[in-house]
């Protein structure tokens, strides 16, 4: 490894004093000038705690119990709080995950960047303003002069993150800590922001600690990688070595979660189950004294597609593209503004509550957030039973309990979990319960609205495998709504790409992923991380 060591973490230990639990069990790493060191791990592995401990910004509930953080010869843990304030922002800077909340909502972005400069330099007045504008230009914010007085909410997520980067780099620090800087961003934006970090690392000879859970990000940006698991670094290697010959089974599992673009699902039957014809969902925009409808937000603007029996249709798009709204419209949870929804040839669009009831049994749904999709006051058994009861499957109490047991078995949970409550389960387990709940009424189509995006990568694969097994077993069709192209190849037969309420391209999974024709699909695909990047 070349480059001077800029920051050295030695045997860092952090404890939760209240319970005595060890969060970090002796973490050591070195950051070198001009290089990006990626710290990878799933939620709860302690990677963010490491970054906050280095900055001495841990929440009050956590305590550093041992180790050292050296910048040059100086151990940061020996400094007084006021000298530490001189280090933060000047020697070591940090950017955070969600720029929207990490920026002060009531202060202009220019002022927020200027604050860092005002704290650590003598720049004032016009010179200060000029420097901020210069920084904005450097991180690629268009019209930097004009954006100075913008408030965070007036900017897009990508631009907010650029402001964060400008703020961090304002005083030319040697070391940059980036805590999941792109997680909240859409893939296309994500790629640009990471490219910016990469470029700045080289041009400014920064030593960067990049915290992420995304192996694709690591593959494209980092020089060295360390895998963190339950408060320990279990493997550490240069990036190329790591991806070609991972040493630990856990690391392998993380790498395997990356998409493999050589295997696709073979075509399923072509009997159409669900057909959408020019479906539109508009939301009115009201203005003026009388609140007249002046215009519409065209959330879904004329979408036609067809899903066959036993087939998976992946609907891909970035946030705000209207894909979830479309899912809700199929479920009749959102009124249609136009078009037809046919289920086995019958028009079910805009049916009244009662007429819809027979179809409720046949079309089911799994939501993104497993925690909010379970009523915390009902037991898992009651949650699964709800559909059976309200759709009148005519089962006796014993039959119902037997069926709940079978379903729990089927989704690989223990039968006795039926009497437990949601807060006792992990996200992955809850998503299995959600699958069992949907299966309980023997549906023919399940709408999966980002069912794995709230889950850690290693669990994600298990849930996807389960969904595929169930498809083979029961012949159920899926409309799989996702922003993540990487899970598509192993899962979907058909893919549709949605942008701004319109389906810009659709076709077989192989066709879309290997030979996309629409520029937007190409851009999406280009930003998908691959092992052989």
């Amino acid at each position: 490894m070349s480059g001077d060591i800029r920051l050295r973490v030695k045997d860092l230990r952090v404890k939760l004093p209240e319970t005595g639990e060890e969060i970090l069990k002796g973490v050591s790493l070195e950051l070198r000038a001009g290089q990006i060191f990626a710290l990878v791990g799933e939620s709860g592995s302690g990677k963010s705690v490491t970054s906050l401990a280095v900055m001495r910004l841990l929440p009050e509930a956590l305590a550093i119990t041992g180790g050292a953080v050296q910048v040059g010869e100086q151990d940061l843990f020996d400094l007084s709080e006021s000298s530490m304030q001189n280090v933060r922002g000047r020697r070591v800077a940090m950017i955070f995950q969600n720029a929207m909340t990490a920026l002060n909502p009531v202060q202009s972005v220019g002022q927020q960047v200027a604050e860092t400069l005002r704290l650590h330099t003598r720049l004032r007045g016009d010179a200060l303003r000029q420097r901020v504008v210069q920084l904005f230009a450097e991180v690629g914010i268009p019209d930097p002069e004009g954006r100075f007085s913008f408030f965070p909410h007036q900017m897009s997520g990508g631009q907010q993150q650029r402001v964060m980067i400008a703020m961090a780099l304002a005083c030319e620090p040697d070391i940059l800590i980036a805590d999941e800087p792109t997680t909240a961003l859409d893939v296309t934006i994500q790629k640009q922001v990471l490219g910016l970090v990469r470029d700045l690392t080289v041009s400014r000879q920064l030593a960067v600690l990049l915290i992420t859970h995304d192996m694709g990000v690591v593959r494209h940006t980092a020089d060295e990688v360390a895998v963190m698991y339950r408060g320990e670094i279990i493997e550490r290697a240069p990036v190329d070595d790591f991806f070609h010959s991972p040493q630990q089974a856990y690391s392998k599992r993380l790498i395997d979660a990356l998409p493999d673009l050589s295997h696709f699902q073979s075509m399923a039957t072509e009997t159409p189950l669900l057909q959408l014809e020019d479906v539109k969902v508009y939301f009115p925009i009201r203005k003026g004294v009388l609140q007249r409808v002046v215009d519409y937000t065209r959330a879904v603007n004329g979408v036609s597609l067809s899903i066959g029996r036993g087939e998976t249709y992946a609907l891909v798009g970035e946030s705000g593209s209207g894909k979830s709204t479309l899912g809700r419209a199929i479920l009749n949870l959102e009124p249609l503004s136009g078009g037809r929804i046919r289920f086995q040839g019958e028009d079910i669009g805009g049916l009244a509550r009662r007429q819809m009831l027979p179809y409720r049994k046949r079309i089911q749904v799994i939501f993104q957030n497993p925690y909010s999709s379970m009523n915390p006051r009902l037991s898992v058994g009651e949650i699964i039973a709800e559909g059976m009861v309200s759709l009148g499957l005519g089962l006796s109490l014993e039959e119902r309990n037997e069926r709940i047991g079978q379903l729990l078995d089927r989704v690989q949970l223990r039968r006795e979990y039926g009497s437990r409550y949601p807060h006792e389960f992990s996200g992955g387990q809850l998503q299995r319960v959600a699958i069992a709940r949907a299966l309980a009424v023997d549906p023919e189509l399940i709408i999966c609205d980002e069912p794995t995006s709230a889950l850690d990568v290693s669990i994600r694969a298990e849930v996807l495998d389960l969904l595929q097994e169930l498809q083979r077993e029961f012949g159920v069709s899926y409309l799989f709504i996702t922003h993540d192209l990487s899970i598509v190849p192993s899962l979907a037969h058909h893919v549709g790409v949605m942008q701004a309420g319109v389906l810009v391209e659709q076709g077989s999974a192989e066709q879309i992923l290997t030979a996309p024709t629409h520029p937007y699909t190409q851009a999406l695909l280009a930003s998908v991380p691959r092992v052989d990047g």
Partner: protein
Amino acid sequence: MLALDFKPVLLWSDALVFLLVIALTLFFYRLREDPQTRERWGRVFSSRLGMVTFTVIMVYVVIALLDSLHFRKALPTPEGVVTNEIFYDNKVTSVLDVLLDGMGERFERTYSAPFALKSFEKSNMKDEQGNMYRGYEDLKHAGQHLSDPQAKWANVLELSLRALAWGLLAAALVVGLQWYLLRGSVHPWYASWAVQAVVICLFFWLVYLSHYYHVLGTDQGGADVAYQSIKGVRTGVLLGTLSTLVMLPIAVSLGVMAGYFKGWVDDVVQYLYTTLSSIPGILLIAASVLLFQVYIDLNPDFFAIGMEKADARFIALCFILGLTSWSSLCRLIRAETLKISQLGYVQAAHAFGVSHARILGRHILPNVVHIILITFVLDFSSLVLAEAVLSYIGVGIDPSMGSWGNMINGARSELSREPAVWWTLSGAFFFMFVLVLAANLFSDLVRDAFDPRSAMGRSGT
């Protein structure tokens, strides 16, 4: 013929109180089934403060309940009259009065200071020769047993020690029994036991000493201040709970419906609570109470005994307070329901075709219970405080019914006397302050345990 020597009297407010107790018991019993709720209550009671404040509140509640068991004593048949009919006293007594052992029946002529032997004001008296002179009259019920007034404080000490000995004995019995029953519990019960012991000792001391002295003096009408203060407990506790109880069904049903159905239902509910909250609350309450008072005055034959009249006014006050104060809770519940309606589990229920009534009952209501609970505890203390203000304005509790508000109202001018009469005010102040403080501290703990937002604030800093 078997002759009861008392006749139970059931006032409307008594009936409501016991109904309330039953309802609350059932409510909490049902809540026990839910492990999350149990865990949260566990958090409240795992702190010493939670135990202490809860015990204090329970002491007040027990006093209020004892004071809600009313009856009329049978009068002894006058001599020389032969009749099988039993005549009952027109005065309504409660079990609490019996326990206080005649404390409320020892009247003086007017003010007297705590532990005083003589009246506070001079009055015309006759000496042995029958000459009129002005002097401080001896009290009828204080220090009669003393041969030497100088020995008063020694005597007080002696009596106190004797009362405390009894008190400690009783406390040991009560605490010992609980200690035996709650051996395995993880909660800090000792904190509760300490409070119980103190309360029991105080009670024995007060009852015992008030046979010989007026511990907190007497008020203008010569009534024992300690007794008055204790009688105020029932009014305060009942007003705090009954008003909230009247308000809850309105606020909850309207709030939940507005948040769930949205559209025109929401518009109507919002209109209702904006209209109601735009009227200055105190004026609305005052006007309503006055109107009801006019109604009582015009229909005097509705109420058999004076106490029933006072009770009717009290219940009317509870209803008026409840009917005029539902808007803030309604607003909270509407907002929470709007939030819950967007959550996955309600959406999933829609996808299963679950009926509106079932979604409201199974998914929405149980998940707004924490707001109801927090409001219940929080409003309790503010209502107790409001009672005093309303009494001052002249639209509070009927003066014949003991209440802290009436005591304060009566004592307002006493501080400007020379020397100041401070004990009436202090008595009411002390009893009110302890209850409100305990309720406020307890509500803080309940909110910390039940409000997800405040819990987040704690771990997020």
